[in-house]
């Protein structure tokens, strides 16, 4: 009996550790996107000058920068979750959800992101194009939160990112009418701040889980 109790106590600690690793992976992912997104936007806003400097067309430059940023971001995200999944895997084995269902939810989230960006790029008029990505990302993040909450777990760090993006887009609308350049800089800062805030919030949750204070 003593042995069984020992195993049970160890399993509870292992579960806490796997939750901690998952939160840390989320935190690192949000922080890396919080660094990459504004860097990508800086390149995008200065695409005319930079493409001329490199003596390539604007389209090629935009495509190249987007591809590099997306590859770095996705590569880091995959690496992050794979590193954390050594223990998570054993936990996932115990859950009822099949890999098929899990990938369905992944596809749902990707679809929401795709539709949001297609919508803003197609229907939002030119003067507001600077801040339209903020609306798209904010909306897509909140829908992703709802999907994950319904089928997996609650990730409040996503709400932090989504709410910061959507709320700060209100003053951006006013700013874009008066000073487009300033609005561009503000967009970069808002992206960075929202993702970094979400990432650090995730680290706070991870620390609480580790100490058993959650």
């Amino acid at each position, binding site marked *: 009996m003593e*042995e069984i109790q*020992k195993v049970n106590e*160890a399993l509870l*600690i292992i579960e806490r550790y796997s939750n901690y690793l998952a939160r840390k992976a989320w935190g690192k992912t949000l922080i890396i996107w919080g660094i990459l997104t504004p860097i990508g936007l800086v390149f995008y806003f200065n695409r005319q000058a930079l493409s001329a400097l490199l003596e390539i067309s604007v389209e090629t430059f935009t495509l190249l920068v987007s591809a590099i940023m997306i590859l770095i971001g996705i590569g880091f995200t995959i690496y992050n979750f794979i590193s954390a999944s*050594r223990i998570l895997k054993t936990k996932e084995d115990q859950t009822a959800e099949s890999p098929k269902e899990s990938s369905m939810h992944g596809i749902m989230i990707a679809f929401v992101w795709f539709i949001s960006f297609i919508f803003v790029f197609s229907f939002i008029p030119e003067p507001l194009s600077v801040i339209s990505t903020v609306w798209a990302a904010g909306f897509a993040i909140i829908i992703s939160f709802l999907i994950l909450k319904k089928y997996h777990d609650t990730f409040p760090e996503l709400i932090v990112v989504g709410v910061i993006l959507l709320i700060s887009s209100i003053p951006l609308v006013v700013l874009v009418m008066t000073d487009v350049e300033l609005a561009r800089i503000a967009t970069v800062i808002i992206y960075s701040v929202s993702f970094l805030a979400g990432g650090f919030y995730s680290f706070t949750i991870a620390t609480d889980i580790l100490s*058993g204070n959650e």
Partner: protein
Amino acid sequence: MANDKGMESNVIQSSQIILKKEVFSDQPRFTIMFLMYLNKTVGFTELQRLLKLTPGNLDHHIKKLEGVGYVIMRKKFLWRPLNVVEITPKGAEAFRDYASNLKQMLKDIK
């Protein structure tokens, strides 16, 4: 001669079982080994917070495990130096044996 060798190996086996039992009988040491069996490397501070132990207390358990060659403590340099505890192949094997004995014991209870 062959009988002597057989006895000798039985004695070695029994003493190893006693040693494993002694090492793993303690709750924190068992949990440390279980965690590292699954994750290979765990940070010292992470272990300390998870197990709610003082640094000195955790160090005592790690030293015990290090003494029998089940784990090693080393420094890892990320953006700051970190003390990490890593399971050795000997430790992984010992834990695997212990866990399968435990599994068998639970089966027998059924």
